[in-house]
């Protein structure tokens, strides 16, 4: 599976399209940022540069990478410094794309048998992590002291297989491409059968004309688009319809997404000139010739 199941996760961006003055996905006041975070439990592989470049749409909001809310992240890095204190361990990590600190809070009853001295002497700390060794960090992206970004982590573990380091970056790149250019085309012609298990995924896995089995003849030269735009396009391709096409309302109901999102996806497809509006602005058909 190419897309790691990111496709059917409800990210903040798809929640509140019609929400007027509210930010996308925010159902309560902006101070309810914590709720947003709890809902999105997807663990996203990133590079440190992506963490440092992450932006907030407004203060206290969730950080965004590639316009997607992120809270839980996983990254790898070479440990440059370990600082053990009574309440936390702070790691400084460098993965070649940037440097960031990761803070692991410890509870007082955890046995603190490792002191700064033993780490400095080249020993390993309580997580088995050593200075200049690689580590994989699972945590959340947070801000401390103004705009300095840190990771609060639940788990730090040493990395001993270099292939895992390389794999992590490639996985992070795959996820980045998923969000910026949409899912990869389904491998081979088997998209239909495997996708049948999950309706929502089928629309994504189908990718370039998977369900018809005819390969990429029609959609092979589709321009880059968001995952939702691709779902709308695939629905328009496969759904039985008159030559007037389908109404945005129908599409929204079929895909169970908000009308605002469908309108945005429609705009994208219209701009890409792969669909055209028929009887009115909100009724679209595939531009096929």
């Amino acid at each position, binding site marked *: 599976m190419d897309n790691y199941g990111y496709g059917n996760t409800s990210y903040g961006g798809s929640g509140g399209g019609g929400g007027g003055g509210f930010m996308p996905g925010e159902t309560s006041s902006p101070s309810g940022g914590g709720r947003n975070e709890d809902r999105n439990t997807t663990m996203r592989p990133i*590079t440190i*540069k*992506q963490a*440092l*470049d992450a932006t907030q749409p407004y203060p206290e909001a969730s950080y965004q990478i590639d316009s997607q809310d992120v809270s839980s992240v996983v990254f790898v890095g*070479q440990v440059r410094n370990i600082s053990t204190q009574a309440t936390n361990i702070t790691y400084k990590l*460098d993965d*070649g*794309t*940037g*440097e960031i600190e990761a803070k692991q809070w410890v509870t007082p009853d955890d046995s603190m048998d490792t002191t700064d001295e033993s780490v400095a002497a080249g020993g390993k700390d309580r997580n088995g992590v050593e200075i*200049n*060794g*690689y580590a994989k960090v699972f945590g959340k992206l947070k801000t401390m002291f103004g705009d300095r970004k840190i990771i609060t982590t639940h788990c730090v573990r040493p990395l001993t*297989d*270099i*292939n895992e380091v*390389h*794999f992590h*970056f*490639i996985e*992070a*790149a795959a996820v*980045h*491409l998923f969000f910026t250019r949409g899912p990869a085309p389904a491998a081979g012609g088997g998209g239909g059968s495997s996708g049948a298990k999950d309706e929502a995924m089928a629309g994504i896995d189908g990718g370039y004309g998977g369900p018809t089995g005819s390969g990429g003849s029609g959609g092979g030269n589709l321009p880059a688009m968001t995952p939702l735009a691709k779902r709308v396009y695939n629905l328009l391709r496969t759904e039985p319809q008159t030559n007037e096409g389908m109404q945005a309302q129908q599409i929204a109901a079929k895909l169970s997404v908000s009308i605002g999102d469908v309108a945005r996806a429609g705009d994208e497809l219209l701009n890409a000139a792969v669909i055209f509006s028929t009887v009115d602005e909100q009724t679209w058909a595939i531009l096929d010739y």
Partner: protein
Amino acid sequence: MSLQTPRVLPSHLHAFSPSATSPRSPPPVRLLGTVTALRGDTATISCGTHGEVTLILKPDSHLQNGKLVEVVGKVAEVPEGGLGIRVLATTDWGNPADCDYKIYEKLVEVTHKLKPMFYDSVE
């Protein structure tokens, strides 16, 4: 921006050499290879099917023949001619057979195609 060390293959060294026209000194690079020769203050690493690179070692560099190492260093002219790496740090990764160099090649390719994710442009 913070210090970055782009991952490269031997064929990319020229892009990070100090002779490049840019006034700013280019960033250090990261290179992965197997140690094939140790000659006191220089060493040679072999980078998969991409040939060999000469390293100018630091006095406290500890390299072992036959081990896979990740090298962080500045691209520099080497006495033998051509470009090599003046070592800043090395990380020992043990047995080269445990590393699939093809994955590293793909990774380098990806990092250079997806600059915004990995590195600020060298300017």
